[in-house]
Each structure stands twice: as C-alpha cells, then as structure tokens.
C-alpha cells in the first residue's frame, strides 16, 4: 500500500509538470514549487553538512589551517551588505587565481597540444592503415579542424578562397551542432520514457496486481 501511495504521489508530480504542455495552470505551479522547494532543501542540507564534516568539525579537532577556507567562504556573504561588499573580492580573486592556475597547464597540453598532435597522428595512421576508410577519416578530421578554426578568424574578411574555406568550416560546425541537438532530443525522449516507465512500474502495474 505504501509503495502504491508513493507511486501515486510521484505520478501526480509528473502529470503536474507535464500539464504545462496544455497551458499554465495551478497544478503545474504547485508541482513546480514543490519540486524546486524539495531540491533546494536537499542541496542546502547536503552543502551545510559538507561544510560541517569537512570544515567545522576538523577545525574543532585542531586542524587550524581550515580557518582560511572557512573565512574566505564567509567573506563571500559580505555581498549582502553594500558597505562591506568589497570584501567578497578577496575570495573571488582567490577562486579565479587558483582556477586559472590549475587550468592553464592542463589546457595547453591536454586540449591544444595533444589534440593537434592526435589530429596529425590520426592522418598518418590512416594512410598507413590497410583500410582506405581510416585514411578518409583522418583527412575529414584534419579538414574539419582547419576549416572550423578558420571560421572564427574575424581579422580577415571571409572573401575569395578564404571565404570558401570558412564556408566548409560552417558546414562542419553545423554537423557538430546537429549531433549535439540530436543528443539533446534523444535525452528528452529518454527522460519521458523514464517517467512513463515510472508510472507503469510504480502505479499502474501494482494497482492491476501485475507488479
């Protein structure tokens, strides 16, 4: 009985959110407020718990270095008061500094040098391979990389031969965005299927005694 009740509550919220497809209504707004409220409560609880278990409690046990991160975290709230809002710049600068420092080395090697290297390696490996499709694949990737990057060169007018190159680049970009969009569409469908499965498995089948 408890399971069916839980299934009924879940189904109510699914239907309430989907009712927006018909038009904005009070059931949708109620469902939306409940879901956002519950999510926010969960997120607040988890993050508060994290600050306590990883910050406050170890600090109380003598790990004094944790004073600095906790203090920086608290300074972020100074934005709430206009007079001391400038204090929030310290933790923000710290975050940006650390973030940039960590990012730059990895970006250069992982996302630029290694990617360029792999594009060239793939091309040669393709020609060395027995399958002509591998060579074609390597050429397509190389052409795609060069033309797509050319599309973002705005210091030179996209005219003449260069204009043709950027047009090819635009086609590659459109194919790439199309693949992303297709992924999005399948994702939405999967979410919908998941909810249909929930309604079937948690409510309809148990109600019909077929669980």
């Amino acid at each position, binding site marked *: 009985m408890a399971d069916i009740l839980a299934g009924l509550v879940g189904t109510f919220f699914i239907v309430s959110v989907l009712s927006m497809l018909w038009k904005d209504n009070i059931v949708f707004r109620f469902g939306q407020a409940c879901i956002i409220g519950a999510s926010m409560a969960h997120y607040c609880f988890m993050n508060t718990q994290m600050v306590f278990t990883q910050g406050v409690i170890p600090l109380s046990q003598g790990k004094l270095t944790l004073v600095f991160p906790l203090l920086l975290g608290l300074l972020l709230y100074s934005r709430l008061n206009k007079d001391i809002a400038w204090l929030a710049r310290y933790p923000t600068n710290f975050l940006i500094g650390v973030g940039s420092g960590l990012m730059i080395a990895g970006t250069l090697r992982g996302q630029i040098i*290694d990617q360029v290297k792999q594009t060239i390696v793939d091309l040669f490996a393709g020609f060395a391979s027995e399958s002509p499709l591998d060579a074609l694949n390597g050429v397509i990737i190389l052409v795609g990389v060069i033309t797509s990057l050319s599309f973002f060169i705005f210091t030179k007018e996209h005219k003449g031969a260069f204009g043709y190159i950027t047009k090819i680049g635009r086609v590659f970009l459109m194919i790439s965005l199309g693949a992303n969009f297709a*992924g999005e569409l399948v994702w939405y469908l*999967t*979410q919908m*299927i998941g909810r249909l499965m929930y309604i079937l498995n948690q409510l309809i089948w148990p109600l019909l005694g077929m669980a």
Partner: protein
Amino acid sequence: MSSQIRAKWTKRYQIMWVACLILMFIPLIHPLGLPTPVSKQVKDYYNTIKNLPEGSIVAVSFGASATLLDEQEAQFLATWKILFETKQKVIFFSTTEDGPMVLNMNLNKVKPESYGYVYGEDYVRLGYAFLGEAGQAAFSENIRSVYTSDFYGTNLNNIPLMKDINSFEDIDLLIYEYTSCTDIEWAVRQWVVAHNTPTIATTLGCCGPMAAPYYPTQVQGFLSGSVAGTELEIISGNPGPGAAISDASNLGIIPFFIAILHTNVEYFMQRRKEK
C-alpha cells in the same frame, strides 16, 4: 506569424507528440528486443575494466543527478555489475548533492554483497564533496585533504581498503561520471594530463560529442546516454533497464524523423512555387 499558420503548426506538433507517446508506450508494455549494435567506444569502455587485473583500485567520481537518472541508470547499473564481477576494489566519491542518494539506490539494486563484497574491504563510499576542478586536483594529490571520513562518518584510516590509498599513485583506473558537458575537461586536465591516470567516462547523450575528441588517447572509452547503457548491458551480458528504454526511444524518434523530412520537403516545394 498569422494565427492560421500558428494553428496549423500547433496541430502538427500535437499530432507528432501524440504519435511519439503511443510509439514509446508499445515497447514498455510489450518489449520488442530491437537489435542494438555495440559501438567501439563502449567496447573499449568495457574492455578497459575487463582487462584490469583482479583487485585493482578503481576510483569512481560520481557526478550523477537524480533528475537525469533515466538517461544514465542503465550505464551505472551495468558498470557496477562489471566492476563487482571482475572483483575490483572500488572507491566511490560523489561530486554532486544528489550523488550519494542515487548511488544508494543503485547499490540497493546491484547488491554488492551478492558478489561477496564486504564494505570497507572491497568497496567504500566517501560521500559528497563539492569537487570542482580544484577539488579534483586536490583529491588526486591527497584524498585525505578532501575526505577525512567516509559516507557513514568512519575515519578513513580505520577503513581497511583506504589504509594504503591516498593519491593518484594508488589508483589504477578513474571512472569519471558527469552531467555537465564540459566537466570532462576537468578529468582530462587534472587526472590524465597531470598524472596520466587511465580514465573512462560516462555521461549524457547530449554530452557525447564533447567527450569524443578525447577518445581514445586521453579517455580510453566513454558511455554517452541511455543507448550506450543498453550497449554496455548487451556486451557485458547484464540485462537492465536499458533494453526497454532503447526500444522505446528507437520507436519514439520515428515521428521526429517524419516531421523533419516532411517540413523540409514542404519548405523546398514552397520555395520552388514562390520562384
């Protein structure tokens, strides 16, 4: 747009969605078992785990979200089953607020104990910590700088599995689960580039194209979306929720194909007529 045109398109949308819903419902009531070919990146993902020697240390960075679970549950369940079947030592750490809850649900379904696993000796859950890129870097350098205790509050030094494990040097494989598409860069920058840690990834269908450039040199394999979850179920012989989802999405997408085709044909015919 005139109201007449708007009404025409609204009706088309409604027909498309109703057709989509009906087609999606059919395999949920009566599974069809449509064939699903296994892609190379899924095979490589599977083989990367399968080829690990028994007892290897696998760290799972678990950034799952409850609201996106339908897209990824098949991936998770199949992955945990493969890890437990191949007798790997697993360290789960959650990087999202929902992570511990989702993992709890998953482990209740998979039941590690049924594979002879003992908590603390064969697998451990480190709970939630907000690990952005800096957090991943800190974790890889010194696990205890981020986690001093596990999900249940036990000090890491009192957990047998964690006694000799404290950094990337002790980890044989990273399974990086994420739902924000660009987060793959964090794993590449902080684990692959910094420490050369073998890494495989699992993510949403829409994030697949952003993970693809890092495969196979930086990320040895990746799962993207529910379809990849189904493929992993097939290749590993662990049936799960993916099969039904895969059939339903294969059928549900048909009205979209027809709509795209129909709209384009209509557009070009209209343009020809105007000329």
